[in-house]
């Protein structure tokens, strides 16, 4: 699965995107956030306040309890501030 990061999430993780491969125990978006937090200091920092992180699966907004099954792209970003 391709992970993409935007705005300060991207800055904290230190890269715009990467391939990730989570274990079978990771079922939901929330599980994935928890798992990512354990992947290094930069991830722990980016996702320290996981509640505020917005997530999109294949470019559609999803809630943290949504299963990630089948998604090719997962995006993590702060609340939007366009317009």
């Amino acid at each position, binding site marked *: 699965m391709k992970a*993409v990061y*935007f*705005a*300060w999430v991207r800055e904290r993780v230190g890269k715009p995107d990467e391939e990730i491969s989570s274990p079978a125990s990771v079922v939901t978006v929330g599980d994935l956030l928890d798992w990512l937090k354990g992947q290094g200091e930069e991830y722990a920092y980016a996702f320290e306040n996981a509640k505020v992180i917005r997530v*999109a699966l294949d*470019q*559609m*907004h999803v809630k943290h309890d949504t299963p990630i099954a089948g998604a090719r792209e997962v*995006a993590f*970003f*702060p*609340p*939007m*501030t*366009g*317009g």
Partner: protein
Amino acid sequence: MSTTIRIQREDFDPQAEADALTQERNDVGALATFTGFCRHEAGALSALELEHYPGMAEKELQRIAGEARARWPVQGITVLHRFGKIAPGERIVFVAVSGAHRSEAFAACEFIMDFLKTSAPFWKREHKVDGSSGDWVEAKDADDKALERWK
């Protein structure tokens, strides 16, 4: 019944966009537009830098425009959003809605702006005149509250 969504680095021409909507058919009675500008913030700001999620940004704007169409019998919808560095006084976003009557054109235009603010994947970072940068603009409670009237 055209919907035009464009995400672009360069500025746009609001009058040309408005003309395109009102001249495409001959029963337009109302055109509501909104233009959002980069404020000067009392002279402290040298630019806003807009990051976006290519692909998803277009999809979200299309989805929002589609929701507006499902609610109101409007004719044309145009939504333009810039990315990259934008100086104070420059345009950032433009929404135009044409219709037979004013109430639906106003409602759809404001609805699109309210949802664009909270669900289109754009993020603003401030660049200061003192050369410092890095402050990401924080999302506003007022923008979340603005959605309540559409429920």
